[in-house]
Each structure stands twice: as structure tokens, then as C-alpha cells.
């Protein structure tokens, strides 16, 4: 599977490492080359400096042949916009988008994006831990 990950933070870098280790073709994008230090030393994918909101940068990353696109930058709006570009302009078959704000996450879920709100999930998890 060819996967493009936008945002090389802790989550992006870790996901990239896991997928690459399983033999998937991974390209990770970030606007700051310093972020790539988080990638595992044996990372077998491609780290590409570029903005995932820029359609030319996405093409360079191979978005036209990608099977999946994952948006995990720090900005909810950036993730939403990039996910919509991948889905509606480049027709990537599977697009996942992190949205911290639960309200925004619910809205975009109803608009047809596949979204995850870590805020909601983690708060729920903590609550369950406390109650057990």
C-alpha cells in the first residue's frame, strides 16, 4: 500500500515507522525538515519537505498513485483542508484526518470525511481508567 502522511510529529513519525517496517511504501511530508529527526533510524520510506496544502507538493509526494492519505499536523484546519484536497481533488481511496476539536470532528464526519478526535477518545479512555 502506498501511504502519504502529512505532519511528522510524534504520531506521524511513529505511524510512518510502523507502516514502513511492515513493507508499505510511505512518504511523509512536513514543512520543517527538523521534524524528520523523529523518524526511526531505520526508516525505509521517503521524507519530503513540503506543504500538504500545496497541490504541487502533494503531486510530488505521489498523491495521484496513493492508496491512503493521513493528515496529522498540529492544526485541525490544515488537516481538514488537506484531507479534502486528497479526497475531492485527487480522489485518494482512503483518507484519514485528525481533528482535535470534537465539534468540528462531528461536523466533518457528517460531511463524509473519515475523522478521529484524539480529544474525545483520550478523555473517554481516562474516564474509564479512573472508574475501573
Amino acid at each position, binding site marked *: 500500500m502506498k501511504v502519504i502522511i502529512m505532519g511528522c510529529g510524534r504520531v506521524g513519525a511513529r505511524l510512518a515507522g510502523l507502516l514502513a517496517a511492515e513493507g508499505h511504501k510511505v512518504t511523509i511530508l512536513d514543512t520543517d525538515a527538523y521534524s524528520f529527526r523523529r523518524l526511526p533510524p531505520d526508516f525505509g520510506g521517503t521524507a519530503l519537505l513540503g506543504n500538504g496544502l*500545496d497541490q504541487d507538493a502533494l503531486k510530488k509526494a505521489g498523491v495521484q498513485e496513493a492508496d491512503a492519505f493521513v493528515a496529522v499536523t498540529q492544526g485541525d484546519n490544515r488537516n481538514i483542508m488537506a484531507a479534502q484536497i486528497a479526497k475531492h481533488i485527487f480522489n485518494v481511496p482512503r483518507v484519514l484526518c485528525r481533528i482535535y*476539536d470534537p465539534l468540528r470532528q462531528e*461536523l466533518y464526519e457528517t460531511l463524509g470525511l473519515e475523522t478521529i478526535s484524539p480529544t474525545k477518545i483520550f478523555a473517554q479512555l481516562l474516564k474509564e481508567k479512573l472508574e475501573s
Partner: protein
Amino acid sequence: MYIIIIGGGRLGYYLLKALLNEGHEAFLVEKDAVICQNINEELGSVCYRGDGCEVATLTEIGTGRADMFVAVTGDDEDNLISCQIAKHKFHVPRTIARIRNPQNAILFKKLGIDVTVSSTDVILEHIEEEVPTHPLTHLLDIREKGLEIVEVKIPSDSPAIGTKIRQLSLPKDSVVALVIRKEGEYRVSTPNTIIESEDRIIALTHAESEEALRRALRGA
């Protein structure tokens, strides 16, 4: 009309001022506390401090009854998302987004934003108009129909000089509407109007035929 503006930069501020002067109910949302305070001191309580992409903020300022929603922050992604929330959550009939990257116009349209304004394109067009040698100037885009009104200057070496309009090989979907002569005299064009050197031709055309129109009037 109740108009909500997101982003209190120079553009948002002057837009707010203009709309208030015209007697509209206008309200601005800005993240920065200092900018917010300055605007409120100058124009009255018309600025709310908050994030225009947050549903809670938009609920509080009554987005549900807004007639128009204008997002003019400096970030395309913020403008897109706040307009989408206004559209899909609050059903605002008309949403307008500023874009900095002209590439985003197609995306925003596809995602349901009613109007996009690209400051880059607007400035480019105005500069184009001022460049005397520029062959074709966009005067107005009629976007929904893919039509545009353009001005073509006839250079002194154009093969079209001396020919009647009906003899020109104009593209089928282009119409010459007006001919403005060098002296400033102008006429509504007829099939028998003769093109003269240094005329300015105002024409209506489909965007795709722009190049063919230019060729017909100015030569290759």
C-alpha cells in the same frame, strides 16, 4: 442584512467599516485581544474575540441568522473551514472566502463555498491593465457561466486592421460588443464595423476561447 466577518486584519477592518457605513448589521470575529479592543474602541461593540472556526463562537454571535459570511483571515485553511462550518452547520445562504493561493479557487468551489476572492489575482489583473503591451485584459468574470468580458488592444501591425468584424475568424462563442477608437470615440460593433489601428475591443467570450479571440484580433 446581517453580515459576519472573520479576521480583523486590514481587509476585515475596512470591510467592517464600509458595511457599517452602508447601514448593515456587521460583526467581526478576531482572535487577537489587542486588535479586538482597538476595533471596539473605534467603531463601538462590533468585534468579538474568538476563533471563527469554533462552533461555540459562531453560535454565540448568532451565525444562524446571518445573511452573509465573509472569511478574510490570512490563512486559506482557516477561511475554508469557517465558511464550511457557517454553510453546513448554520446554513448561511452566502459564504465568501478570501484565498491567497489562486490554486485553491477550484477546491473551495467544489467544497461549496459560494464566492472566492483571490487577492493575488485581483492585484495581478489591475497591474495587467496598466501594462500597455499586455494583449488581453480581463475586465470581468461571469464565473457561474464560465464567461468573461475582456479588452483586446489592436497593435498597429495587426492583420485585423482594415477588415470588417464579420470577416474575422472569431471563435463561435465570442462576441465583439464595443469598439473604442484611438480618439476615445466608441461604437457598438456591427458586422460591418472596420477594425482600425490602436482600437480597443471589448468582447464577451468563453474562457477557453480567449486565446483564439486574441489571435483573431492581434494575429499569431
